[in-house]
């Protein structure tokens, strides 16, 4: 193993970068499997992945935003809007494919609004998305006056309930979107520009990077990722709920930060984020299995985030 790392600096770096969080994930799994015999099974593992899917995909979008040194608190509301858009489309008799595209478009448009307000009107994204979080959440209720809307379209509900090649379709979504985001971030010019701009906005500007446009695109990516989360959630629930995705932005931020994304911008990876999302998923799943009351779960999750952020800050200080 040591030999292998010496010969491959990229591997060595990856091990150094993720060993802490990966060990945490394994320790959590070991703890839960000793406490509950049902935890360590393929069925439960797939279960965790399925539960984590909505958060993980939203967290991919959140990672882009945080990498740029911004924040998007409206993603929970966009998740709900997406579900409602789908429900209304089906109510109007629109088919599966156009509905799917319209739902994605709704996420892109709401993200575009966040991006334009942040980039072109020079407003802090924290404030912009606190405001749009409320606005978007309100929009969800407009078509039904606050009542949930049923979705009976079988192709739609299949996404959240059926399998493909032996794996739940939801997991295919996570896998494909992970690869897409990971490659876009680590292998392309676009990803590099996000890293550079997040690392030093002024230097990026003076190097000819169109920072405003980049910001808008990033918020649109976040919106689209949230819309996909909304599709998965609504298909699993057979309905669009007005309170769907409530406070999911916090879980998405937690996943990104647990995975080593720096809130100052410029540092972070999709690999880290998916491990972070898995930690949150395992925590939720394990504590549910042990019938830990919901309020204790909140306290434990909060403590885990504090420890992760502390360890991250400490390792950064040590480097200096």
């Amino acid at each position, binding site marked *: 193993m040591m030999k292998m790392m010496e010969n491959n600096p990229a591997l060595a770096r990856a091990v150094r970068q993720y060993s802490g969080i990966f060990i945490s994930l394994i320790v959590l799994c070991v703890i839960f499997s000793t406490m509950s015999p049902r935890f360590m099974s393929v069925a439960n593992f797939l279960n965790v992945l399925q539960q984590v899917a909505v958060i993980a995909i939203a967290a991919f979008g959140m990672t882009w935003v945080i990498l740029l040194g911004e924040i998007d608190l409206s993603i929970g509301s966009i998740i709900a809007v997406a579900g409602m858009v789908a429900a209304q489309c089906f109510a109007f008799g629109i088919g599966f494919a156009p509905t799917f595209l319209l739902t994605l478009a709704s996420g892109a448009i709401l993200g575009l609004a966040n991006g334009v307000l942040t980039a072109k009107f020079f407003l802090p994204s924290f404030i912009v998305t606190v405001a749009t979080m409320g606005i978007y959440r309100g929009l969800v209720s407009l078509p039904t006056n606050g009542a949930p809307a049923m979705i009976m379209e079988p192709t739609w509900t299949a996404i959240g309930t059926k399998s493909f090649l032996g794996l739940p379709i939801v997991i295919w979504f996570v896998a494909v979107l992970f690869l897409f985001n990971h490659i876009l971030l680590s292998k*392309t010019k676009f990803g590099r520009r996000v890293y550079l701009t997040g690392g030093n906005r002024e230097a990026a500007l003076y190097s000819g990077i169109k920072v405003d446009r980049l910001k808008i695109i990033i918020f649109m990516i976040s919106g689209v990722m949230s819309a996909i989360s909304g599709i998965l959630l609504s298909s699993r629930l057979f309905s669009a709920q007005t309170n769907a995705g409530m406070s999911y932005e916090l879980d998405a931020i937690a996943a990104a930060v647990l995975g080593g994304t720096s809130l100052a911008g*410029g540092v972070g990876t999709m690999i880290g984020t998916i491990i972070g999302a898995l930690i949150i998923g395992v925590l939720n799943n394990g504590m549910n299995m042990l019938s830990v009351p919901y309020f204790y779960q909140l306290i434990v999750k909060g403590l885990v985030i504090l420890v992760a952020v502390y360890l991250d800050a400490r390792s950064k200080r040590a480097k200096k």
Partner: protein
Amino acid sequence: MQGLADDVILEIRDVSKRFGPVVAIKNMQLKVRAGRVHTILGENGAGKSTLMKILAGVHQPSGGTISLAGRPYTPANPQDAARAGLTIVFQELSLCSNLTVAENILATREPTTAGFINEKALVRTAASLVEDLKLPVRVTDQVGDLSMAQRQLVEIAKGLSIEAKVVILDEPTSSLSDSEAEILFEIIAKLKARNVAVIYISHRMEEIMRLSDDITVVRDGSYITTKDKTETTIDELIALMVGRDLDEIYPPREVPAPPASTKPVLEIKGLTRQGEFEDVHFAVRPGEILGFFGLIGSGRSEIMNTLFGMRKPSSGTIAIDGREVSINSAAEAIDLGIGFVTENRKEEGLVLSHSVEVNISMVALDDYANRLGFLKRQAERQDAQGGVDRLAIKTASLETVAGTLSGGNQQKIVIAKWLLTQAKILILDEPTRGVDVGAKFEIYKIIRQLAADGAAILLVSSELPEVIGMSDRAVIMSEGRQTATVSGDEMTPEKIMSYATGFAQ
């Protein structure tokens, strides 16, 4: 120094400091006398900062002894140092921009009445200090509204508000204009009159020769020698500092300047931006180095920013290769072949948290991506290595984080990133600021080479010798107006200064 040992206020004997296996300073010696200005001279990395941090109580020495006013001096932290009567004014600004001048000067020592801050006493105490020092600020001004230079003066006032026996000034003039520096020099004279010892750190030789009484040279973490100002010369000090003779600070032109008949690559006519500069006109030819000199606030950097598309001109024209262009963003400027090494490399030049490689390829990123936007890492690495080799950037590897390199090497990275774009017009705004003498010489050689390769260079500098030593011609600015364009015999310090101060006939 013989026979005067009794007025030595601060004495450092055989002090060393190790950080793990790294020896930062060894066998350091220093005798600072009351009422004298003692300059510490050395290249970046020579150990000056470590020594100052030991004096300030930030670091503790690994060996040796220090005495202050005849008593052993072992500060455990900066508060200890202040209590013992040693004040240090760091070059990094540590003011709160949301508070007033008075609140900043007396921060943590506000006068109180029954536990509440006594606003009147606060303003009165601070005002008397500001008046005493003749600072060009009002104590009720918010620090955020002040210029960088004014802030630096407030910082100094804050340091001096503590009754000190020894005052350390770390590059205090680096962001001051000449007239503001004069205010500082008066302050230093007052401190001397009060029998305070001043330890002074600066890279500006003229200033050092003017202010200092004693000069200690350090190199590679070691004490070299201490000279009385009256018994040394600038040349001798530079030679001591770099450990070799510098035949010339400015490398000579090897390729002659292009003839006046050559078509200019860039031509500016009547360029104006309301409130910043007006009616600026110049042309620069391929292979030419055009200097820009002016005091702080003369509008030089503003012109360059406008040229680079970062702000819009109110009127005037910019022509490149004879074609009139409008430049609305940095991206457009880069497409037109303009490169810009900005004044503040840490703020606008580098992404300090990222690798040398990523920083070098930053501007030319399009060249390292295929049609789908995927990066060609092999080609990117190769060209970044080429830049490192060509400019002799001292870095452990391409993966090294840019923020860990010295100032001179960081500056070379910024230049390297523009080399990859093959810019035909290169703007260099204060390219040697905060760079030590050795690296300065290398940067001058690079500038000469770039000009020889056919680039048109706009060299903005507030160091007069640099402008005279490097430029073929120079544009002189004063308060937003172009007062002259000098060349040949007119390029003398006296002529240029008279234009720059606006007193020319």
